[in-house]
């Protein structure tokens, strides 16, 4: 793991990169990285995230400045700008059931090709997917998702990259931290090794490539 500035961290991300972004309606989102992505004007991004948040908040910041070419999410209903961009076909949107999204990302991080889920059977979500029957029940084969980068926000990060999360800010962060080639982390608090008890670490340090220095 390397410690980097927020400018340096974002400078690594090329235009057109695929990025997983933690957070749920902005809670647990890596706001400093999102601000810097907007400032550096990275464009044509493929974003994988739970939602489009609100204008001016979380991933909404990237929507505001039309930096996202393609968004894979479970919900964009609270962001009218995202709705408009989708309707105007300025941003491609793949809507995925939230539990399926979490499992696809987890599969990507855990070396699984995919999972069989009952969610979406008999709905438009079936389109283009393999349906597999097991013991008289139907499942959709939902394939693994990975990205070039994962942008993660933690509550505590130690000097080795061990992470823990607070309350509902955990959400998609832990699964995304396993599912990208390069993992960049911000933290509310950076603490010495040993401050996070071994049983309370949620994301093991070796998963983290870059920790963004505070301040």
């Amino acid at each position, binding site marked *: 793991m390397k410690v980097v500035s927020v400018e340096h961290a974002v400078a690594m991300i090329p235009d057109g990169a695929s990025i997983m972004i933690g957070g749920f*309606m902005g809670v647990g989102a890596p706001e400093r990285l999102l601000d810097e992505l907007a400032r550096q004007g990275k464009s044509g991004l493929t974003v994988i995230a*739970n939602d489009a948040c609100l204008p001016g908040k979380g991933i909404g910041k990237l929507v505001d400045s039309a930096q996202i070419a393609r968004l894979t999410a479970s919900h964009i*209903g609270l962001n009218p700008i995202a709705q408009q961009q989708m309707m105007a076909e300025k941003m491609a*949107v793949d809507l995925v059931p*939230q*539990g399926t999204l979490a499992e696809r*990302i987890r599969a990507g991080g855990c070396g699984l090709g995919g999972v069989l889920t009952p969610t979406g059977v*008999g709905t438009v979500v079936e389109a283009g997917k393999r349906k597999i029957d097991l013991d008289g029940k139907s499942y959709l084969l939902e394939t693994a998702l990975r990205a070039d980068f994962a942008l993660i926000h933690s509550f505590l990060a130690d000097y080795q990259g061990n992470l823990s999360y607070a309350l509902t800010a955990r*959400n998609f962060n832990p699964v995304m931290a396993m599912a990208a080639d390069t993992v960049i982390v911000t933290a509310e608090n950076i603490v010495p090794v040993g401050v996070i008890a071994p049983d309370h670490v949620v994301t093991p340090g070796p998963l983290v490539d870059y920790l963004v220095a505070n301040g």
Partner: protein
Amino acid sequence: MGEIMDAQTIIARRVALELRQGMLVNLGIGIPTLIANYVPEGLHVFFQSENGLIGTGPIPEQGLEHPLLTDAGGRPISALPGACTFDSATSFGLIRGGHVDMTVLGGLQVDGEGHLANWMIPGKMVPGMGGAMDLVTGARRVVVAMQHVAKGKSKIVKKCTLPLTSARVIDLVVTEMAVIGFPGGRATLIETAPGVSVADVVSNTEAELIVPAAVPAMAI
């Protein structure tokens, strides 16, 4: 109807009667959220917020909100003693795995066979399904809490014209006019709201409704 209670209150109070001791319950956004206010005295239920919490408590007093403790809509909530947090994969493992005893969701349409549509209006509004598809597919009991009629049209339709949320038949719809179940996959009137007649319900319901000889009133 509506003389004493408004529609939302009738619905929330009636759905709250479906709660049982020790249940793990997920409440959707909108009317379902109100149900937490009407948990019967002495009953302990666990409320799950699918963004990663079991043990959701009331909206915190002003000044006690924490920015990292919110519901699935991003609004501040509190956590009761014994609450626990988890990631999204675990949250939906609980939902899909049948560990959630009951979910209460809003609806755009419910049809005569008990199918729910609640996540998009093609060409108009495409918010996305969020957690709804997993909840309807995986929760042990699915209750839809919604108004009976919107813009003069019954929301309980013969056949859903909007995209379905799940192929699974829901258990119960509670509106400000009636409680409707789906035994054998056919819409059946179970209760009427105070002051609402069976004829009122039938005339406001597009779906064919099985009406038993005696239909009790909601005990709210």
